[in-house]
């Protein structure tokens, strides 16, 4: 009891209990797994695990007859194959940007990202999927690999809350590290603002693969979407202290917004062209709406 109470409080800082209750009914989906896998061809690499029944699939000519569920045939006179839990074993990699740029914004993008990561992590762990959560800045700053089960929820919450958004961002290095440690199949979700001066393309390319779905969630703060600046300013980049001297005028703001839209569109096109899914979120929006409505719509969650 004494150990659970402080950690329960910590998770509740990220997700309130009502939201958690609704998350309980959700599950993650991986399209790659549901599509076109010949039944039975995949052998479980894990020996010694019990095979648990998970789901049914309609019989197609050529499937292995050993896995036909005869009870359903007896009842419905239709052939269905049994799908086993091992085959549904998703590995979810959450890559959360914890660089200094995520700490900006009102409300802070970083906190939004952590809440979103906590929600997705909760769904993953609640459904006994494998979760690896990585917070990156300049490379991977913190990582909890291969968590499975609800027991890991407090640890996840603690890591998320303890890590401050700080430091430079080296996205490429982080993606490389994640990719090398990636096993099995599943879903990779990257949560960031994607303001990478070195570019994101080569990094994201590494994350794209045959076995993992890639979901790109870009979080922007309202101040970045519609800046309210005025006068002669010297803008300092929070990460590398790069300075930009501007004299705010309506023309400048117009160009900025245009550039922002172009940047996001470019990212969206990159993702779409490579079969990844792009989601843009505003840190002023509610995490609940994003998770419960939008992510279900795009079939990340079910």
């Amino acid at each position, binding site marked *: 009891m004494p150990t659970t109470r402080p950690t329960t409080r910590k998770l509740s800082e990220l997700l309130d209990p009502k939201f958690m209750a609704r998350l309980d009914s959700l599950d993650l989906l991986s399209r790659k797994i549901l599509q076109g896998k010949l039944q039975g061809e995949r052998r479980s690499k894990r020996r010694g695990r019990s095979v648990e029944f998970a789901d049914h699939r309609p019989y197609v000519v050529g499937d292995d007859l050993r896995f036909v569920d005869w009870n359903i045939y007896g009842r419905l006179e239709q052939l269905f194959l049994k799908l086993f839990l091992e085959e549904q074993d998703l590995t979810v990699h959450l890559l959360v940007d914890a660089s200094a740029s995520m700490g900006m914004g009102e409300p802070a993008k970083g906190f939004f990202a952590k809440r979103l990561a906590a929600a997705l992590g909760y769904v993953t762990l609640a459904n006994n999927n494998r979760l690896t959560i990585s917070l990156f800045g300049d490379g991977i700053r913190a990582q909890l690999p291969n968590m499975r089960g609800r027991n890991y929820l407090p640890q996840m919450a603690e890591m998320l809350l303890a890590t401050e958004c700080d430091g430079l961002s080296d996205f490429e290095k982080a993606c490389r590290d994640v990719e090398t440690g990636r096993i099995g199949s599943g879903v990779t979700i990257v949560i960031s603002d994607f303001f990478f001066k070195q570019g994101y393309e080569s990094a994201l390319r590494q994350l794209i693969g045959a076995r993992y779905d890639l979901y790109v969630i870009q979080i922007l703060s309202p101040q970045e979407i519609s800046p309210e600046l005025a006068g002669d300013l010297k803008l300092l980049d929070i990460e590398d202290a790069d300075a*930009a001297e501007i004299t705010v005028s309506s*023309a400048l703001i117009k160009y900025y917004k245009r550039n922002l839209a172009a940047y996001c569109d470019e990212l969206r096109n990159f993702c779409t062209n490579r079969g990844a899914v792009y989601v843009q979120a505003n840190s002023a929006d509610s995490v609940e709406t994003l998770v419960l409505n939008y992510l279900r719509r795009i079939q990340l969650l079910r």
Partner: protein
Amino acid sequence: MEFLTPMIGLYAAAAAVPMLLLLYFLKLKRREVLVSSTLLWKRAVQDLQVNAPFQKLRRNLLLLLQLLALAAILLALTGPMLALRRGPGQRYVLLIDRSASMNATDVKPTRLDVAKKQAKAFVESMRGSSALSWRDQSDHAMVIAFDRRAGVVCSFTSDKRQLMTRIDAIEPGDGGSRLVEAVTVARAFAQSTGVEVAGGTSGKSAQLILFSDGRIADLDGVVVAADELVFHRIGDAGDNVGITAMSARRSYERPEEVEVFAAIENFGSEPVTRDVQLSISGNVHAVRSVTVPACEKETEDRPFRPGQTALNWSLSHGEAGVLQVRQLGADALACDDAAWSVLDPPRRLSILLVTQGNPVLESALKACPIATLDPCTPAGFDALDPVAFAARQQYDVVVLDNHVPAHLPPCRYLIFGSPPAGIDVNSPRGLENQLVVDWRAQHPVLQYVNLTNLFAARSYRLELPRDAEVLAEFNESPAVALLHRRDGTFLLVGFDVLQSNWPFEPSFVLFCYNALSYLGAQAGGQHQRERAVGEPITVENVSGGAVVTVICPSGARVDVKADPGGVVRFPGTHRVGVYAVETADQPRQFHAVNLLDSQESRIEPRSQIELSGVTIAAQEQEVQRANVPLWPLLTLAALMFVCIEWLAYNLKMRI
């Protein structure tokens, strides 16, 4: 081009130009703001710069403009001057009437203030020298204020501010109005400032602008061309009641009694009833209510006559004092509502008789109302110190009986017999058996004196100077003559009374009585104490170099220094009232200054004035500001434009 203050410009340039350059090339202090990433901002700035290629040029253009503006200011500071020939424009002479009638309050506050206001409006509307046009000619004006005399208030100048200040400083006065002197002075000044153009003085003669009510006494003597004089009439109404004559005399027989005479005139068209008050030394003695009839307007048959009422008082006042006759009741002109007269204390004469013994003369003199008769021997008279005698003023009249004195102290003399030396009268020889053939019976000395039977067995032939008055004549020479000299007044009788039959005539006593009265009145000098406005006050017999204080009716004290001859002259009698003269050793003397001018009391303004040969009508409109300079408005508009431009610039910079 000349530079009045070049060094100031150089110093300012040394300070200002580097500062301006520094401001431009120093980095602008910018506010630092943290952003998540400058990635997109930099792209936006690049886009902006690419799409606005004139940004840099604009910055340099602004710098250039500001440098030019700075250069213009610095150049202005060095005081550049362009020397051009510039002639005067139209010249005006403003004649402002400051006589007594201009103190009338029928136009508020007084007519003189309204005249000054109109004159100032005229000055403002003169064409001034414009800084933007080089060859333009500005108008010059001159201001002369006149009452009985003309005084130049401001000579020809185009400096409007100086003209206005001097016009404001014109003081009202109570004098009469005379225009001839003012026009003469104006013409004299107008001639002398002409720029010499080939062939003569500058062509245009000055135009005379007259601000007056038209009540000027000597208009006939003013000669002007028809369009040379412009007359602005000041004033509306003509109703006025004033005192136009006053005199106060002590009776000779009974010096304690005083007879006061005053005439009060009504210039309005309705009869008025006023209370007239007589007061002595501040105490009211009598108040009388009189009704003054209305005036008779001017028609073709008869001239203008004001309604007049005369007043008499007899009172007894045994001391010196100041008599004031005042008309109670307010009217437009206040300075003619009172008149003053200074009363000497009653005195009987004291006579010094220089004779070797003449009982006839003595008894005749004693019959006259005199205070003292002191007989004196001729030797005793010669032994007197003339300076001490004059200073003591112990005797009013000195009677010389057949004595030619060694020196004549200043006094009044009744001389029987041979005339004294030193008064321009010669007596070459004697005459015999002279009979009076003619005498001037109207003269005060010979009033009621009948000289028909006067026969002198022996007399002196008198050769008199030209200014002597001959009162009676023998057939060959003047018998009685009156002479005024600096040393005094001399009544000469050219024969010894004991050599004639005069003592048997009753006219002898009458003659002595009249002579003493006449000479004694001269001694009293009462008429010298009453003056018209503008006449100077003279006080004699003051020790030379002493300082006397004159107290004006307004209370101001003026110190005047006596000249070496012992005479004090105070010319500043511009207002009516009683002036007091204080000296160190003499008691306070009072001098009355009165207006007593029927011309001035008639305040009705004239709508046209008739100068000699020319009639000039008054201007219909008041002088109003004609030329309004527009440059202040334009400068204000320019300032507003600059402010709007600054606002627009700032707005463009914001979102």
